[in-house]
C-alpha cells in the first residue's frame, strides 16, 4: 500500500489522459449543434417552450398565461372549438399542427427573476429542444430572456411586458411583442384625462422603482405635460413595498390634485387601496375633485383592489367584455375549458402562440430568419384588437388601445372594468427610431 507514489510528472500525465478522455463526448455533441438551425424539428412533432411565472408576485398572471398557451396548442392541433383561429384573418393554419408537425410544449418557472427565467429558458432550448420561447409577466424578465433567445438562436414571443425598452432600447431581431407599451398607454390616456379632468391639473407620481416604472412615469409625464398639466413630484417607491402610507401622506400637502400610480400587480392593489382608505378621492384640492389614475390596468389587479377601483381610469391591452368576433370566440372557448373569463395576459399569450404558429406555416419553416420575415410588417385582424400591424422596424405590434375605468356597478366579480374609449391605432403610433436600440441580424443558432 505504501508503494503508492505520486510525483508531479505522473500527476500531469494522469490529468492529461483523463482530460483527453473526457473531451471526447464534446466531439459528438458538437455535431448535434450543426443542424440547419437551432433545434430544427426532425420528427413528427415540434416543441414550444412556455416560460411563465409559476411562483412569486405574478403567479396569478403566469397561471392564466399557461392556461392560454395550452388552449392555443389545443387549437393549433385541431382540438376544441378552434377559438380565435376561426376569426383570425390569416387562414394558413389548418388545425393539423404547424408545417405538418404536431405541436407539443414544455413549461418552465421564471419565478419573475431574470436568472431563473434564463435558466429555465436554457433548459427548454438545450434539453427539451424548444423551437420558440414565449411568456413572462415582467419587463425585466422579458428583456433578459429575449437577449438569451437572440444568443441561442430561437424566436422569443414576449408575453406580458409593458416597458418601452422591450422593443425599444433593448430590442433584438429574434424577439417579438404583441402587448402594448407605456408610450402607447400615455398617448391613449392623454386625451381621456383631458376630457375628464381638464388641462389645468397638477399630478403627483408614485412610481415603482425599476425599468417599467420609470418608463411608465416618463410616458405619462410626457403626455400630461403636453396637455398643460404640471408635475408636482415623482416619488420612487421600492418594488413590493406593501405599505405605501408614508408615500401617500405627503401627496395631500403637495398641492397636487391628481395621483398617478405607476404600480403593477400587488403594488398597485396595495397603493390604490391605501390611497382610497386615506380618503384622497373625497378631497377637494384647488377647487377640483381629487383624482387617481392607474396607467396600466389588468382585470386581475382590479379584482384584487375590489371596491376601490370604481371610477378610476387606466389603459389595458384587451378586455374580455369586448364584443368583436375574435374576443367573443376566445372568451367562449377559454370559459368553456376553465370556467372563467381570460385576463389580458392570457389574451396576449394566446395571440402570440397563434401568430408564431401562423408565421411558421406561412414561411414553411421554423428557421428564425424565415419566421421573422413572415412576421415583419404582417397585417392581421380577428385576434380581438382590430386591425393590427406587426411592425418590422422594431418587432412591435400596433393596434387600438383600450382606455378603461373601474365599473361603478359590477354585475359579477369578473365584471370590474368598463371600456371608456378605444383609442385608434393611428393615435398611438410613433416612429421606430424614437426609442433607440438596434435590432441587429437574426440568429439562426
Amino acid at each position, binding site marked *: *500500500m*505504501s508503494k*503508492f507514489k*505520486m*510525483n508531479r510528472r505522473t500527476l500531469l500525465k*494522469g*490529468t492529461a489522459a*483523463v*482530460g483527453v478522455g*473526457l*473531451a471526447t*463526448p*464534446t466531439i459528438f*455533441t*458538437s455535431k448535434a*449543434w450543426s443542424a440547419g438551425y437551432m433545434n430544427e424539428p426532425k420528427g413528427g412533432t415540434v416543441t414550444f417552450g412556455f416560460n411563465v411565472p*409559476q*411562483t412569486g408576485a405574478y*403567479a396569478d398572471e403566469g397561471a392564466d398565461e399557461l392556461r392560454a398557451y395550452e388552449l392555443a396548442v389545443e387549437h393549433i392541433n385541431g382540438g376544441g372549438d378552434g377559438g380565435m383561429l376561426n376569426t383570425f384573418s390569416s387562414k394558413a393554419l389548418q388545425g393539423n399542427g404547424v408545417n405538418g408537425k404536431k405541436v407539443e*410544449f*414544455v*413549461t*418552465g*418557472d421564471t419565478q419573475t*427573476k*431574470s*436568472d*431563473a427565467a*434564463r*435558466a*429555465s429558458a*436554457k*433548459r*427548454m432550448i*438545450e*434539453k*427539451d429542444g424548444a423551437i420558440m420561447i414565449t411568456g413572462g409577466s415582467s*419587463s*425585466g424578465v422579458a*428583456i*433578459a430572456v429575449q*437577449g*438569451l433567445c*437572440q*444568443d441561442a438562436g430561437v424566436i422569443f414571443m414576449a408575453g406580458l411586458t409593458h416597458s418601452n*425598452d422591450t422593443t425599444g432600447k*433593448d430590442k433584438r431581431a429574434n424577439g417579438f411583442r404583441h402587448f402594448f407599451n407605456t408610450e402607447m398607454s400615455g398617448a391613449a390616456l392623454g386625451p381621456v384625462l383631458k376630457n375628464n379632468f381638464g388641462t389645468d391639473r397638477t399630478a403627483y407620481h408614485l412610481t415603482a*422603482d*425599476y*425599468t*417599467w416604472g420609470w418608463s411608465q412615469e416618463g410616458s405619462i409625464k410626457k403626455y400630461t405635460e403636453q396637455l398643460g398639466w404640471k408635475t408636482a413630484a415623482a416619488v*420612487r417607491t*421600492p*418594488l413590493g413595498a406593501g405599505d405605501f402610507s408614508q408615500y401617500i401622506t405627503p401627496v395631500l400637502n403637495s398641492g397636487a390634485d391628481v395621483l398617478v400610480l405607476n404600480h403593477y400587480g400587488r403594488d398597485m392593489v396595495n397603493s390604490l387601496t391605501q390611497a382610497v382608505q386615506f380618503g384622497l378621492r373625497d378631497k377637494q384640492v384647488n377647487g377640483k375633485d381629487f383624482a387617481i389614475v392607474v396607467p396600466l390596468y389588468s382585470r386581475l389587479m382590479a379584482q384584487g383592489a375590489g371596491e376601490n377601483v370604481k371610477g378610476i381610469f387606466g389603459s389595458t391591452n384587451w378586455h374580455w367584455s369586448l364584443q368583436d368576433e375574435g374576443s367573443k370566440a376566445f372568451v367562449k372557448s377559454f370559459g368553456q375549458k376553465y370556467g372563467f373569463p381570460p385576463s389580458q395576459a392570457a389574451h396576449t399569450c394566446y395571440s402570440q402562440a397563434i401568430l408564431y404558429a401562423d408565421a411558421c406555416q406561412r414561411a414553411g419553416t421554423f428557421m428564425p430568419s424565415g419566421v421573422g420575415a413572415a412576421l415583419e410588417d404582417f397585417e392581421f385582424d380577428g385576434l380581438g384588437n382590430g386591425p393590427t400591424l406587426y411592425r418590422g422596424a422594431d418587432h412591435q405590434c400596433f393596434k387600438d388601445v383600450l382606455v378603461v375605468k373601474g365599473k361603478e356597478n359590477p354585475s359579477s366579480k369578473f365584471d370590474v372594468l368598463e371600456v371608456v374609449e378605444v383609442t385608434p391605432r393611428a393615435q398611438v403610433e410613433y416612429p421606430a427610431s424614437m426609442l433607440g436600440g*438596434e435590432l*441587429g*441580424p437574426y*440568429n439562426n443558432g
Partner: protein
Amino acid sequence: MRFLGMNRSDWLLFIGFAVVTLAGPIIFSPIGAGYPDLLQKFAIYGIFALGFNILFGLTGYLSFGHAAFLGVGSYTAVWTFKLLTMNPIPAIIFATIVGGLFSAVIGFISLRRTGIYFSILTLAFAQMCYNLAYSVLTPITNGETGLQLTQGDPRVLDVAFGRDYGAVLPSSDLFGIDMTGYPGFYFCGVMLIICFFITLRIFRSPFGMMLRAVKSNQNRMNYTGLNTRPYALTAFIISGMFAGLAGGLLAVTDPLAGAERMQWTASGEVVLMTILGGAGTLLGPVIGAGVIKYFENIFSAFNETILMQAYSALPEGLQHFMVTLSSLFVGEGWHLTLGALFMLIVIFLPGGLMEGLRRLRNLFTKSSGGQGPGNSAETAHSATPA
C-alpha cells in the same frame, strides 16, 4: 505517501472528484441533467457552496449575506467584458478580487459580533447591496433589467488585438472557444476542481485546524491569548472570493448580471445547499448544490402532460388521482418537495446527505470488520454541525 500535504486517500478523493466532474455530461444524462446549462450551474453553485462551507462548516459563522459577493462578482465580470475583453480569464480574476475586497469590508465589520448578530449583520449588508443595485446604482447595475452587453461596448483589449465581433452581440470566448454549451461547462468544471483542491488543502492545513478550534470554543481560544478574529476574517474573505469567482463564472456562461442574484433568498439558498449536503464535509456542499439546482430545473418542469404519460400504465381513475396527487409536488410545487426533503434531512440526518452516505458505508463495512483506511480521513474531519 504524502504529496502537497495530502495523503493517499485525499488524493483518491480528489482524483475521483475530478473524474466525476469532468464526466458529468455522461454521468448525469440518465437523470435528465446532462445538458450544458444545468451542468454549468452544478459546477458554479458547487464553488459557491464550497466557499460558504469554508466559513460556515469550519468556523461555524453563519453568514446570511453571501449572495452579495456572488452578485458583485457577476457585475465585475460583466463590466470586464464590456470594458476590457470577452476573454473569461480577466473577468474571473477581477470577479474574485472584487469579491474578496467586498468580503474584507463586510467581514471586518460583521465579525465584531458572533452568532445571530453576525448573521443579521451580514444579512443587512447583503440586502443593502441588493437595494443599491436595484435602484440607486442603476447607472452601474442597470437596475431591475440587469447589466447586459451591448454592441457599442468599448472592449479596449479586444480592439487592441484586432478582435471584431461584427454586428452580433459577442459571447465570452477563451481564445476562440465559445464559453456557452459544453466548453463553458468544462471551464467551470476545471474551476470547480481547482476550488475543491484549495478547499481540501485548507481542510487539511493547520489553518483549517485553527478554524475548527474557533468553531468549537472561541472564548477558550481567546483566553489562551490567541486573537481569533484574523483567522475568522481570513476564512470570510476566502469564502467571499469563492463566491465572487462563482458570480464571475455565472457571467462567463451567460453574460448578464441581475440584482436578484444578491437577494436574501439567494443567500438562503447557499445555506440550504450546505446544510442539505452536510456542513463541514468536503463533498457535502457540492452535492447539496447539485440536488437543489436539480430540483429547481428539473422538478419544476414536470407538468400534467408529463405526469399523465408517467402514470399511463395505471387505470384511468387511478391515473387522474395519482396525477393530481403528484402535481402538488412537481411543477410549481417543487419548493414543497424541496422543503419536505430538507425537513427530513435535518430531522433524520443532521449531518446532511454526507451523513446518510457515511451511515450506508458503515452498514457495509461493519460486516467486513471496521472502517477501511479510505474513509477514515473523511469521517474524522467532518464534525456534525450544531
